[in-house]
């Protein structure tokens, strides 16, 4: 792996000077999630054969595919923008994935809590209505893992717990513009 990362950096810099499109994703500021159960980013990219079956299996049609906007290495790989359409944690993409780039995870709360890590929700208390004295609680009600991933306190103020898997349904449903709760993708993605 060490040798490869060296070769990668050498050829990467060589290619970067030749190609108008960037090869690696590191420079982009896109905030996106990988489908639930996706492997760690570099491993995901080496596993994914870009067959598009995860998107075809997704009943919520939240999985989209990159063009060149996130670098050539993630061309045609699946991603989710939670504010546009969030994951409903049905786990069908992992079932259909032929390469294990998206792990197969059973559609059970315990398995999902243990194995899914798309990111973590974070509340911006300066924008959140409940923190401004107007009882809201929409994010709490949207959460598929209510009272485990997210709890509410006084005035329905949301408190995200570390158990949050980052499906993004809270961000999708937030009635504030811009959204007061958003998913911070797990480190390896962003």
């Amino acid at each position, binding site marked *: 792996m060490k040798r*490869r990362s060296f*070769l*990668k950096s050498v*050829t990467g810099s060589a290619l970067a000077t030749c190609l108008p499109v960037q*090869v690696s994703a590191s420079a982009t500021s896109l905030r996106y999630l990988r489908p639930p159960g996706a492997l760690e980013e*570099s*491993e995901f*990219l*080496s*596993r*994914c*054969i*870009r*067959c*598009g*079956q995860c*998107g*075809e*299996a*997704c*009943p*919520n*049609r939240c999985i*989209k*595919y990159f*063009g*060149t906007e996130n670098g*050539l*290495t*993630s*061309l*045609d790989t699946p991603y989710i923008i939670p504010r546009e359409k969030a994951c409903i944690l049905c786990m*069908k993409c992992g079932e*259909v994935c*032929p*390469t*294990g780039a998206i792990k197969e995870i059973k559609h059970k709360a315990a398995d999902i809590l243990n194995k899914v890590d798309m990111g973590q929700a974070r509340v911006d208390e300066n924008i959140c209505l409940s923190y401004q004295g107007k009882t809201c609680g929409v994010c709490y009600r949207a959460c598929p893992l209510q009272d485990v991933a997210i709890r509410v306190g006084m005035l329905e103020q949301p408190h995200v717990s570390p158990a949050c898997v980052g499906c993004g349904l809270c961000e999708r449903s937030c009635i504030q513009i811009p959204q007061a709760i958003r998913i911070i993708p797990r480190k390896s993605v962003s």
Partner: protein
Amino acid sequence: MQHEQINKPFFLWAHLNKLRWLSLIFVFSVLILLPFLHLYQTYVAAHAYDLLTPDQKGIYDTMEWLTSPLTDNPETDLNQLKGTTWSGTIFGLKLSDPLALVGQLAAGLSIYWPLVLAALIPAVATMIFGRFFCGWICPASLIYELNETLAGWLRRVGVPLGDRKFDRRTKYLVLGSGVIISVFLGSVAFAAVYPPAIVGREIYYAIAQGGFGAGAVFFLLTILFDLMVARRGFCRYLCPGGALYSLLGRYRLFRIKRIVETCNDCRKCNVVCEFNLDPMHDDFGQECNNCTACIAVCPTDALTFTVSIKDSPFLGPGHLGHEYRHVSHEAEHETAAAS
């Protein structure tokens, strides 16, 4: 008389080319149908028919009409058919293109056994039938062959088109460098440049993801390359999948063979061959995709299938051909003169 009967090819072989076109069209239609079925599934899952737009209702109604005789539970039952020729699921059986496996092995430098199993059936089939995927299944082949037909019409009305010849071995270089690039990038590079993968994906993007992606541009360029530079250029000289299949199919069991007794050296087989091979001189080689176009076109039924792991060496000029008769006449004269 009995001798001639033995040498007559089985009647079906001459019709396989039509069957092949049906197969290509069928695969392409399924690739168009599947994204619509996917959309239909999501509409069913949403339980909101009344909220659909008229277009969506049209899709819903058509797909319901198509699938209702087969299933009462489209939301889950239609999951039995997913994917493309690059990688797909058919009634629980996962199948993948062997090139996907090669690309993944190179990019990950690790083995994921379920993918190996998924690529096994296509790989074994290729070892038996040769590069049959290219002629019988590949959705890009359908477009390339139609493109070639279009090129024929354009040539007839005098449009100058390219007909350059390159080295057929270039594609093995593409395959090799694709593997190396995949290792360096840690990403399956073939997926971006392999036409059947692109076609399947782009059809899905266009129907279910709101528009064509970047691959469509590349595919369009390969069509233009075929049209303007080299006939069937991409398949003949550049396709990494074709290269892999040719290698796998080198010792294929089923291959086409010329019957020298009934061949009249008319060259029609050579002209019709999509891959620019040389059936008339018994030179099929590893790149023959058993498309059977040469069998279909042969006016004297001098081409047939045989079970063998090697082509026969050049059998000499066809016995009904001018050259053979010329030679044999000379030989007769010589023997007459000697006696």
